[in-house]
């Protein structure tokens, strides 16, 4: 029996759009989302009447203030879309799960053009005290008790992903000799690229000394290892590949998606703490393509925390196992003109926590050659995109031409 067809290859990203991005924009999440969606639809050469699918991550009501963005019913109604397929949800291979679902929906013929969006207003929510969480409870009467997975970490003050990711970094220091001076280059490279991105939030130069002097959040992660909450919405249109010749802007072809998780789905119990399921997602992606790591021309790898980008570099095979520290040190290999241009918009550390969809948007910008001052010198043919970390991780390859 021949291998099953890789159906994601029947899909393209035909259009991209993004709202204003910034700190405390003072605009509603639906307002920002509509901006991004209309921009993406126009970019794809379509009108809202052409859109027959809608998807988002994670869907309404998830997480703390400003995290989830509007639900698909809200967006459908705001744009009066007539849908053949719709999907919103948290569980799956990371933030890109909504994109993967859209790719498979168009491949299956359930929809022709799927609008996929991710909206955050975490900066405004923080300004309103919306993310005080445990702290606010502790100040009030009666602290609620927790069931489910959080019961194993909250009693110990392991309340933030920063704590969990810090333990990944610490373990990597133990196993691979990773140093803070090496890890710094994820933040420094991001800041260097953000200076060339007019929409980035933090654009002032950052030195290694600045990084090392930053206050600790949870050792060994300092402030600059943690991404910057922002307000903003990103949208893409996922279409059937047959539409590629008709797009007004170059289509980005989906070559392969990576969705696997083989270890225990847990921050405590996963077998290899230095990789988590980035290992499995990357392996499953490479098993679906003839492309090899050496073919990747630009890498947009999730930096919700700097250490996650280092995990992705290794697990995607863009550098050797355990070697991401020396690989990024000094910053030349990951610079715009280096062999692996990385997080070219500034990443989430400097351009804002658009929660994975910023990486996807930037990969398309680079493949289309529209990066302006931050465009990698030779227009890339293959882009790697990864989002998430820990037991929540997914990745994909996009190409400038058809597979």
């Amino acid at each position, binding site marked *: 029996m021949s291998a099953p067809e890789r159906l994601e290859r029947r899909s393209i990203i035909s259009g991209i759009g993004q709202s204003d991005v910034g700190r405390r924009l003072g605009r509603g999440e639906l307002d920002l989302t509509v901006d991004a969606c209309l921009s993406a639809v126009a970019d794809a050469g379509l009108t809202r009447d052409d859109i027959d699918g809608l998807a988002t991550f994670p869907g309404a009501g998830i997480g703390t203030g400003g995290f989830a963005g509007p639900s698909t019913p809200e967006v459908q109604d705001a744009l009066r879309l007539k849908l053949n397929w719709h999907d919103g949800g948290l569980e799956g291979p990371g933030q890109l799960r909504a994109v993967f679902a859209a790719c498979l929906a168009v491949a299956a013929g359930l929809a022709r053009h799927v609008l996929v969006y991710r909206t955050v207003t975490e900066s405004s929510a923080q300004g309103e005290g919306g993310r005080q*969480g*445990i*702290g606010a*409870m*502790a*100040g009030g009467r009666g*602290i*609620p*008790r*927790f*069931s489910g*997975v959080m*019961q*194993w*970490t*909250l*009693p*110990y*003050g*392991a*309340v*933030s992903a*920063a*704590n969990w990711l*810090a*333990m*990944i970094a*610490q*373990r990597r220091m*133990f196993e691979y000799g990773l140093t803070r001076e090496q890890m710094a280059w994820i933040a420094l490279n991001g800041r260097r690229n953000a200076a060339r991105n007019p929409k980035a939030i933090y654009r002032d130069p950052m030195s290694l000394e600045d990084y090392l002097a930053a*206050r*600790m*959040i*949870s*050792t*060994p*992660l300092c402030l600059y290892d943690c991404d910057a909450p922002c307000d903003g919405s990103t949208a893409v249109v996922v279409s059937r590949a047959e539409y590629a010749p008709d797009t007004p802007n170059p289509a980005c072809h989906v070559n392969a998606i990576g969705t696997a998780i083989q270890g*225990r789905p847990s*921050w*405590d*119990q996963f*077998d290899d*703490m230095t990789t988590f399921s980035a290992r499995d997602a990357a392996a499953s992606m490479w098993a679906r393509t003839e492309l090899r790591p050496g073919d990747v021309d630009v890498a947009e790898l999730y930096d919700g925390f700097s250490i996650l980008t280092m995990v992705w570099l290794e697990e995607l095979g863009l550098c050797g196992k355990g070697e991401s520290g020396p690989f990024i040190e000094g910053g030349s290999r990951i610079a715009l003109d280096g062999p692996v241009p990385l997080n070219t918009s500034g990443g989430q550390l400097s351009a804002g926590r658009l929660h994975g969809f910023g990486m996807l948007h930037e990969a398309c910008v680079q493949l289309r050659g529209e990066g302006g001052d931050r465009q990698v010198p030779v227009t890339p043919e293959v882009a790697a995109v990864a989002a998430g970390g820990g037991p929540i991780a997914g990745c994909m390859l996009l190409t400038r031409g058809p597979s």
Partner: protein
Amino acid sequence: MSASGAARGPAVRVLPRLDDTNRFFWTSGEDGRLRFLRCSACHHYVHPPSPRCPYCLEASLAPEPVSGRGVVHSFTVNHQQWIPGSDDYVIGLVTMAEQDDVRLTTNLVDCGPDDVRIGMAVEVTFEQADDVWLPLFRPVTSQ
């Protein structure tokens, strides 16, 4: 702040809601022993609690005391004031001596934050809060 230079945990401990699946674990320290579910068929320990043994799928799990010994698999010293009023405290991930894939997130205590090491041998000590006995871990002192 203890003499060792770090707090034993956050200023406020958010506690688990006890139910029929987790009560044995969170109250185990009442007699000073740590317990995990163990399968009477294949003898694996299982954590977090589950209705059947995930190794052999037999419905044969019951709480069983363990040594309380383990090894620090990783750790972090928390500085951020997620919980206002907290001094720096050490979050640890401890692998239990009995089985590699039974780990607990915990606080490492009675050890200065600069002295914590991955691979360090630790043993359980309990902190009671209401009806819950939280397993914490300290460097091994007894033989």
